[in-house]
């Protein structure tokens, strides 16, 4: 796996120094956030990116060659057990995992890729310091990755004393990158992440000596998703084969009941009957043709219950609202749609619309998928299409109003359109959920904006009227040499 990555790193997003730096930061931050949330702690993540001084780094202006950076990421997660640490971080996960739950991992390979990329480009070791709550010491491990064998190599190890209450992991390594061309991207990533993860406290020290601090604004952690077995509609033949291989069940019926969610005794029986398969047959004995036939039936059989949304972890309305409040708008309306399903995958859409305040007069769109911000290909995203087709007039709003839309979709499988995984495809049911959510928000927002405008107009009308009469009184007074008083007309 490591070797495969080494030869195909462009696919995973490490195709140029600027993008590689961005992807590395992003992957490791997401790992940290996952670790903290998994441990049920409010995340605190401190990222420090510093340039390693070399002769060529002194050149002013736009750098020509990629530079070397030291990236340090500290979190307050549960820490890693000493025995697990090298394996967990140093090896690409290829394990067989058939349970599903919502997770960030955009590329499914996590931060290991970033570490590998760092070692490939700088040939320097990786340093991990990790400590668990209740332990008296923490472990510092210096290691390298063996690319050919997909194994970690331990270089150095020591134990350091620590306060038993401290916990968390620090990862420190070197990598090549291009800060000049990725600065905006990385900064924007932190800002948007802080909106969807407002319960995290984040700090980013950048190579220019600036420090971006994003303090926690809410103390609630979203409910953690539960692991769930796959839904029969959400798999393919290849996965089915592997599931059968791993399963210890001896009959098709018990295999179906044991390996899929929402499939019980009667559902399994009915399905097998409609597919013309023998419930007592041994799953491992099925021929390839039979497997394909079964897969087809799985896809088209209408008797399955909808997949469970317990494996999803939406941000929640409170979290979403405080996150949006980071932009200091005047109004915020948030809505969460009921769970829905596409192609056997459950998903939940959460929408927020903000208006006025410190927003600039134009429409902005913030997209999030499984609590990570999507920064690119905005115009092709299904949310953009929905917004473009809105008729804002219906809600008393205008195209040049200060408006910001937030679309968060969480799913066990986000319907990305391309390998780049930066935008969500136009799937009818997803589109419909986004559309209805946005319209619901706009209706509520429109009422508020209209009321505010009405009050504002009334106030302005009165103040103008008073202004005119003051002017009239003054001018008349001068022209007629008499005092003209407004007391009788307008009071004081």
């Amino acid at each position, binding site marked *: 796996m490591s070797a495969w990555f080494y030869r195909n790193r462009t696919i995973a997003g490490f195709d140029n120094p600027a993008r590689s730096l961005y992807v590395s930061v992003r992957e490791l931050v997401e790992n940290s956030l996952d670790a903290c949330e998994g441990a049920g702690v409010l995340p605190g993540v401190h990222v420090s990116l510093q340039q390693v001084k070399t002769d060529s780094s002194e050149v002013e202006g736009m750098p020509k060659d990629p530079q070397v950076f030291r990236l340090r990421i500290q979190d307050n997660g549960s820490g890693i057990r000493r025995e697990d640490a090298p394996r967990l971080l140093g090896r690409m996960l290829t394990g067989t995992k058939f349970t599903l739950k919502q997770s960030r991992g955009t590329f499914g390979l996590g931060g290991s890729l970033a570490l590998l990329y760092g070692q490939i480009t700088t040939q320097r070791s990786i340093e991990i310091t990790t400590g668990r709550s209740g332990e008296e010491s923490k472990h510092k491990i210096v290691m390298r990755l063996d690319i050919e064998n997909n194994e970690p190599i331990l270089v150095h190890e020591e134990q350091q004393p620590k306060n038993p209450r401290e916990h968390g992991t620090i990862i420190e390594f070197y990598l090549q990158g291009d800060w000049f061309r990725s600065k905006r991207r990385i900064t924007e990533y932190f800002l948007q992440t802080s909106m969807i993860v407002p319960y995290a406290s984040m700090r980013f020290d950048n190579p220019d000596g600036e420090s971006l601090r994003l303090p926690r604004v809410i103390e609630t952690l979203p409910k953690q998703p539960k692991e769930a077995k796959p839904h029969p509609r959400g798999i393919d033949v290849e996965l089915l084969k592997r599931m059968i291989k791993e399963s210890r069940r001896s009959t098709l019926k018990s295999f179906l009941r044991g390996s899929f969610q929402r499939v019980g005794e009667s559902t399994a029986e009915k399905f097998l009957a409609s597919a013309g398969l023998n419930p007592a047959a041994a799953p491992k004995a099925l021929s390839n043709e039979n497997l394909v036939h079964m897969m087809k039936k799985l896809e088209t059989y209408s008797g399955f219950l909808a997949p469970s949304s317990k494996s999803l972890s939406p941000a929640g309305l409170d979290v979403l609202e405080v996150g949006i409040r980071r932009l200091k708008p005047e109004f915020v309306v948030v809505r969460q749609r009921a769970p829905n399903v596409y192609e056997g995958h459950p998903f939940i859409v959460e929408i927020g619309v903000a208006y006025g305040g410190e927003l600039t007069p134009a429409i902005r769109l913030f997209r999030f998928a499984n609590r990570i911000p999507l920064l690119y290909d905005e115009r092709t995203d299904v949310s953009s299409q929905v917004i473009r087709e809105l008729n804002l007039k219906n809600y008393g709003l205008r195209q040049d109003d200060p408006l910001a839309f937030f679309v968060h979709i969480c799913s066990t499988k986000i319907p990305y359109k391309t390998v780049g995984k930066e935008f969500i495809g136009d799937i009818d049911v997803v589109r419909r959920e986004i559309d209805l959510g946005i319209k619901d928000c706009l209706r509520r927002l429109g009422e508020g904006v209209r009321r505010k405008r009405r009050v504002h107009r009334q106030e302005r009308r009165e103040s103008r009227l008073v202004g005119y*009469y003051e002017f009239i009184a003054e001018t008349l007074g001068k022209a007629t040499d008499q005092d003209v008083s407004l007391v009788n007309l307008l009071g004081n």
Partner: protein
Amino acid sequence: MSLIDDVLGTLADTINNGDFPEIGYYGSSKKNVEWSENGYEPVNAVPSFVDGRKVESAKTIAGLVYGLTCFKEHLEQKMSMSLRDFYYMHKVKRVQEVLEISGQNETNRLINLCERILKIQGTSVPREEFGVVSSPKGTFYGDVTLSDLSGKQLNCSGAGEYGWFISSKPFDVKIHDINIDAAIFVEKEAMARNLIELKLPETLRVGVGSLFGQPGRNMRAWIRRLADNGVPILVLVDMSPWSLRIFSTIKSNSIELSNIRGLATPSAKLLGLTTTDFWRKNGMLTAIEHSLENMSKSDLKCAQQNRKIPAINEDPILQQENEVLLKKRKKGELEAFKAFGLPLTSLRNLYIEYIKRKSSGFDVKLI
């Protein structure tokens, strides 16, 4: 002057009493105007109101009050102002901050409103009376002796190559002596100059005025003054829908200014160029019919709209002219005389003959 004081005083009292001022007037809609042989007459059917309780109306009243104080000041100092001057008076910082005037249109409307509100014995007081002079233009050449606002006595044939520049307040001009049998008013300056150069005023004992396009208020008032003094008025314009409008404003005044009396001259005659000159068998200009130009899109549109202008549509002569133009889709200009290619003396004779023959059709006999 005392009228302005009255209005300002009334407004001051109203406000001191704690009432919102309300002002009624008659707008310039077609409903408030009727056309007859004597031109447009105000009928004052539908009044409009400025209601001081409303924001926009309060703004109008504020503008009105300010405008009236401006007029008062100017009158006291015996100064006149132009529309543009008045507009710039609203750029005084204190005024601009309150009234936020966006363009000259707004202040022009205010002056128009003043004319409608200030009335003496039911007749609007023209803006000239409160010192506002809107773009005076037009000249007059001929043996007429008068004293204008300068106080000097002069003869209009001895006041330079175009003659006398029409006063901004023709009502206040004193006419001492008139030695002309008719006055010809020409749309275009070049033709008028030619007539003066060829000494036609002396030969025919006529006055020649130059309208410079659509005549200004002062010119219309001057024409009316002459007519009131028994001078037959002849008008020489292009043969086009636009020129029909020019003639109709001389003859009937305009809907917009119908509240101002003394601007219409119902006895004015359309001397030429008429469609009969070119297209009737014995027309004087049939020989140069080929010089006519096609009417443009906007010309045709203008002619279409003329059908909705009472002063043209209800006047039998103008209505017919307009219809012929629409049918033939050609227009003629005063410069057409040059298309004969005649030597100077023959051209002079042609002009004389044309004017004589056409005016005799209106029972105006020239020497």
